Every structure is written in structure tokens, then in C-alpha cells.
């Protein structure tokens, strides 16, 4: 095995193992930390594929933003140290069976399909390329979705403030 393969399988093991632990542990804080490791493994896979910009965005937004938000909400809503109640055995079994059947079905579909790669020469994925195309207004430009996303983020921000605000009781 070459180093490339060893790194790939280690990252895959880290991602899938921490994801399984994140959905199965009964300590909610440990679940958040395992989710953090799963997201870091994903960022490692993006680095492994030479998409360094996506990996950086993944670390900044997911690992630095969303996980911290989740941990804060756990602190605000949960007595830490208390275990989550045990789920019914039958419910867990049925959920695992359904997920496993769907997984097997999807994997057989994927492995029976042959993908046709394009024959054109690959371009380098640099930050300059991404920035020029994202704000471009020509044929392959993504300026319109970019602006839509900015409006969506603004709407989400205002929506969060409106939902979570506590109005003073008017006497």
C-alpha cells in the first residue's frame, strides 16, 4: 500500500467511525465532539482530493461555526452529564434495518453503473479560478446564485433574531 492509500483509508475510517459514534452515543456532548471529528475527516478527504479551498471552507464553517453553535445550544438546553433516555429496542432495530436495506440498494445501484468521465483536460482548482467564475456574469458565471445566497443568509439572520428574541412583557 502506498502512502496515498493509507491516508485515504485512515480518513475514511475516521469519518465513518466518528459518524457512527455521533449517532449512537447516549451522551449528547460526546455526540457533538464525535460530529466534530467526522467533519474534520471530511475536510481531510477534501484535502486528499486536492480541493484545498473547499476543505478550508469546511473547517471554517462546519468545524468552527456550526459545531460551536451546536455545543452552545447543548449548554443552553440540556443538563450536561445526563444521559439521553434509552430508545426502544424495536425502534432502533427497525431504523437500522431500514437504513441498511437502503444502503445496500444504493450501493448495488452505484456499482452496477459505469460513469463516463469527460475526456477534456483538467483545470487547476485555484482560489483565483473559483473567485473569477463565482462572480462572473458570462456563460459559466455564478453571480446570480451568489447574490441569492447572500439574500438567504440575510433573511436567515433576521429570522433568527425574530424567533429567538424575548419581548419584555407589557404591563
Amino acid at each position, binding site marked *: *500500500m502506498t502512502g*496515498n*492509500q493509507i491516508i*485515504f483509508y485512515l480518513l*475514511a475510517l475516521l*469519518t*465513518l467511525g466518528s*459518524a*457512527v459514534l455521533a*449517532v*449512537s452515543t447516549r451522551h*449528547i456532548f460526546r*455526540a457533538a465532539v464525535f*460530529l466534530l471529528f*467526522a467533519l474534520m475527516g*471530511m475536510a481531510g*478527504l477534501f484535502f486528499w482530493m486536492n*480541493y484545498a479551498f*473547499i476543505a478550508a*471552507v*469546511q473547517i471554517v*464553517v*462546519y468545524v468552527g461555526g*456550526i459545531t460551536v453553535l*451546536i455545543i452552545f*445550544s447543548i449548554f*443552553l*438546553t*440540556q443538563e450536561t452529564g445526563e444521559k*439521553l433516555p434509552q*430508545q426502544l429496542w424495536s*425502534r432502533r432495530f427497525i*431504523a437500522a434495518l*431500514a*437504513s441498511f436495506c*437502503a*444502503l445496500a440498494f*444504493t450501493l448495488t445501484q*452505484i*456499482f452496477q453503473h459505469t*460513469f*463516463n468521465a*469527460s475526456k*477534456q483536460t*483538467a*483545470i487547476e*482548482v485555484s482560489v483565483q*479560478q*473559483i473567485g473569477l*467564475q*463565482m462572480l462572473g456574469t458570462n456563460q459559466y458565471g*455564478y453571480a446570480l446564485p451568489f447574490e441569492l*445566497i447572500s439574500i*438567504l*443568509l440575510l433573511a*436567515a*439572520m433576521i*429570522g*433568527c433574531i425574530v424567533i*429567538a428574541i424575548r419581548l419584555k412583557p407589557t404591563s
Partner: protein
Amino acid sequence: MTLEPGLYHLLTISTGLFFIGVYGFLTRKNLVTMLMSIELILNSVNLNFIAFNKYLWPHRLDGVFFTLFVIAIAAAEAAVAIAIVINIYRNNRSINVEQTEEMKY
């Protein structure tokens, strides 16, 4: 399936991650842990987009842009969901989905 990592290996990882998230979404009863499962599902989709971009369309950047937009939408979704969770906790003193039944009838 060879030992050399390729498109099929990455698709296997992302499919596994997706259904791990589905399992968590079906079994968890706590709103915050259900949100974590949704994050796993969204992340598996990102891995799919990047793998397809790398192995099938290496001359274009569309997968990268879709991944960036999915990440932005996931961040907005997580922020709104957590605002709702905190509001539910303030009203109900619990974030268990089985006790969140004000809109049931």
C-alpha cells in the same frame, strides 16, 4: 473494486455517511441530535459533488460551487434551527420531539 481509491470508494463513503445520518434521524428524539444527523446528511452530499467534479468533470468547477452553496445553506439552516430549538426550550422546558405537540391538533 480495486484497492486504489477512486470514485467508487468516495461514493461508498458518502452513501454510508448519508444512511448513518438517516439512522440517527430516525432513532434520536432530541432536537439537537436530530440536527446533528441532518448535518451529516448534508456533508455526504458535499462529498458526492466534489468526487463527481474531480473524477467526471475535471475541466469545470460546477461541483465546487454547488458545494459552497450547500455549505452556506447548511449554515443558515443550522442557525435558524437552533433559534427555534432555544425558543421551544423556553416555552416547554424540554426539547424532546414527543413533548413538542402544541401544533398537533
